[in-house]
Structure formats: structure tokens, C-alpha cells
């Protein structure tokens, strides 16, 4: 994201909270990817991600532009929210990886964000299989029953989906430009 664009978006949202969803659209996958690495379960990842954006909306007026990417501010809120979560669970926050992502983690996160957006663009049947297998934790048998196909056909669909994603990821650097904020389609 161009930093100038981002700055304008933040200022727009500070003046009019209705614009906050644009910041949400641009950052939700990154924040989710960051939290998900640390959360240990989907429920916790979702709770903490909600918390991050609720707090960001509440405190947006306090965000001061100093050239630091907005997402870094969101990561810091996320790190605190995760630490709070572990504290409530009676666990030591020392178990957490370092708060601030290093260069390597940034690359990992960006890779995942690209992957998530490729999943959103899969043909419906393939996307459904990914959703059921990975999000809903359903077995091949359950997916086959739900979609009224054979187990073999679902496995083929699954393979095709993941192969499409793999190809997309290989082509990623050339393909990425001009495809911002696409998800939720």
C-alpha cells in the first residue's frame, strides 16, 4: 500500500468514522494472519482480531501519523490484546513470540495475505471445499455428503484448488499490483 494513500485514508476515517471500514478491508487479513500465528485456535484468533479493530476504531483519534505504517499500530494493539488474553487464561505471556514481527515474519504474513485473497477468487466449488476442510474442520466424507459428490471427486477438487493456489503464489509478485482491498467479494 502506498503510504500517502494510507495517510489520507486514516485522516478521512479520523474525520468520519464511516470511512474506518476501508482501513479494515485493507488490514483485516494481515491482522488476522498475525494473530492466528499466535492464537492457537480459531476462536481465540477471531476474538482477538475483533478486539483489535474495536479498539482501533475507538482510539483512532489518538493515532498520530509519524510515517510508521498503520498496520504496525494494529500489530501493537494485537500484541497487547493477546497478552491480555493469556493473562486471563492464567498463562505467562513469555510464551508468546516477540511482539513486533521481524522481516521474516513480515514476509510470511504477506505470503499468507496473498494466499487468502487467492482463495477468495477460486471458483465457488473449490472455495467451498477449502472453507469446509480448513475453516470448518470437516472430513472429506462430510464435505462429500454436504456437496453431494463422491469422496474421490472432492479429493480431486481439493487438489485442483490447492494446485491453483500454489500456481497463483508462484506468479504472485507480477500479479499483485492493482489488486487491493478485494476481499469480502
Amino acid at each position, binding site marked *: 500500500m502506498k503510504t500517502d494513500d494510507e495517510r489520507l485514508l486514516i485522516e478521512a476515517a479520523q474525520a468520519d468514522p464511516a470511512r474506518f471500514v476501508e482501513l479494515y478491508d485493507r488490514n*483485516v487479513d494481515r491482522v488476522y494472519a498475525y494473530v492466528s500465528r499466535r492464537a492457537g485456535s480459531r476462536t481465540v*484468533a477471531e476474538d482477538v482480531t475483533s478486539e483489535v479493530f474495536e479498539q482501533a*476504531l475507538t482510539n483512532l483519534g489518538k493515532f498520530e501519523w509519524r510515517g510508521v505504517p498503520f498496520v504496525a499500530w494494529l500489530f501493537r494493539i494485537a500484541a497487547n490484546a493477546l497478552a491480555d488474553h493469556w493473562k486471563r487464561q492464567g498463562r505467562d505471556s513469555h510464551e508468546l513470540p516477540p511482539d513486533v514481527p521481524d522481516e521474516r515474519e513480515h514476509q510470511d504474513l504477506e505470503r*499468507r495475505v496473498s494466499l487468502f485473497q487467492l482463495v477468495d477468487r477460486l471458483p465457488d466449488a473449490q472455495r467451498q471445499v477449502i*472453507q469446509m476442510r*480448513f475453516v470448518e474442520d470437516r472430513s472429506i466424507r462430510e464435505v462429500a455428503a454436504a456437496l453431494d459428490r463422491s469422496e474421490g471427486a472432492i479429493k480431486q477438487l481439493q487438489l485442483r484448488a490447492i494446485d491453483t493456489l500454489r500456481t497463483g503464489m508462484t506468479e504472485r509478485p507480477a500479479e499483485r499490483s492493482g489488486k487491493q482491498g478485494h476481499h*469480502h467479494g
Partner: protein
Amino acid sequence: MADQLLSDRLDEVIDALVARSDASAALGDPELAPLARVAADLRHYPNRDFTAHLRARLERRKTMTTATLAPGVREGFTTVTPYIWVPDRGLADFLIRTFDAVETRVDENPGHGIHRELRIGSSMVMIGETGPTDAPARPQAFHVFVPDADATFARALTAGAMSLGEPEDRHYGERAGFVVDAYGNHWYIATALGPQSLGHHLRTVTPYLHALDVDGYMKFLTRAFGAVEETRAEQPGGVIPYARMRFGDAAVEFGTHPPMPGAYFLYVADPDAVYEQALAAGAKSLSAPADQPSGLRIGFVEDPLGNHWYIARPFDSR
């Protein structure tokens, strides 16, 4: 068929990934490894129902934050006004004798008790008198700034209150004494000491809500009503001895104590929308928004601590 086999092998890897067991064997298989890596990342793919739902909630809340700040407040009142339920007029007398409260309105509703409004300095307090046979009192706690805490403390005792703590210079920039009235309400009677004191920022009466999980409760109030955290003190172990939030033009304070569930009016621009938002945040409906004979449209909810909120707006000011 090689492809058939690959689809089976990939499926076994996915089963292992989903079960969080060891799938690293796949990395030795050159055909399978690149697919297994994609599959490992897919475990973190966000549920799009979740991201869409959160987006909708944030979109609703932006309206709410604006709504709570918009002019739905009754003239002379602030966004949050306490509503104290007691059996009889003794509380009104106590407030008049202790704080020089001025009664500004009395409505007798046959069969529904008596409704009173009193002004104390720059704040309003409402009282509902249920009569002796009705529901028990719902005592609350208040932080009250007065010119001379010692004198007011003495008047409170004369008017029938009991001391919870003699007036002293407190480390947080106040001289304060604490009393409990005959109905169980707590009054933290304070005089500002020095320029840093809260007394210069707060109105005469500020509701002081007790919660055991102050952090969790404040998060609820943000989600439900768009309240904004202003400050918090935090002790090791996460205990929050003091915090403050802003609701529109009103402040509400918090401390870590067992809850004293009371009742509050919350004036907003759009009671229907805020009512829905409160339910979505986890409040329980006590009655859906409706126009009341008092000239207010009111939605009524109970929050997770048992506090009652009358989400209101005068309907002639729409």
C-alpha cells in the same frame, strides 16, 4: 492414476494438518511438498463469515459512536444520568440535606410510584420511588465533588448516612470521605486538591461503577454504547483500581469491586439502533424501544453485571 494418488496423499497431509499432528513427512516428497506448504498456510485462512460479520459490526458501531454524541440528550441532562430506585422519599430528603440538591420535577404515576428529578450542582439525578412493597432498592455508587468535603461529610452523617471512611487527603489529588446512605448507596465525597485533581474535569456527580473485571466490562460498554476509555490505572496482575470512560458528554468511573448493579438513563440520538447494538454486544433485553407517556422513546436492557440501561431520546426532538 498418478493424479488420483496425489489427491489421496494430499488429503492425508491435510488430515494431519487439521489434526495438528506431524505432516512433515510430506516435505520429503517433491511432488507433494509445495502443495503441503500451501495447505499448512490454509489452516490460517480466516472464516469469511467472521470477517464479513466483524465488518458489519464496525460499520454499525461508527453510527453508534456518532449517535451517542449526537444531541438526543434532554435539556439540562447529560448523556448518562443515574436512576436510583428506592422505596420512599427518604433519599430525596438525604440529597437535599447533604448536597443542597434541588428538586426540579416530581411525577406521581398511580400504581407506578413516584418519579423525581433533582439537580446537584452541575448534575442531574433521577429517583424512582417504588413504595414499600415493591422491588428491592438498587444501590449505586457516586463520586461527588463539593467545595468542602469535611463539611459535606458531616452533613451526610447528620442526615443519616454511615461513614465508610473519614475525610483524608488521598494520594489521587483529593480530600475525600466515603459514606453509605440508608438505602445502601455509596457517596464518595471529594474536594479537589491541587491543579491535577479530577475535580476540575468532572461534573458534580459522576457514577462510579463497580466490576470485578473492569477491563472486560469496559470493552462491553464500548461495543454496546460506543463509550470511549479516557484513562486507566493498572496494578500488577491486571487489577484496575481506577478507570474512566466517556459517554457523549458524560464521564463514568470504574473500580475493581463486587458489582452494585444500578440503573442509568443513556440519552442517544437513535435508541433503536443503540438498543440493537447493546443486544449484539451481549446485553439482555428488558423491553424493546417504545414511545413512553413521558415523551421519551426508551429501550431497556440489562448488562452482564446486572446494571439497567434506559436507552432514551425525547421523541418530540426527532
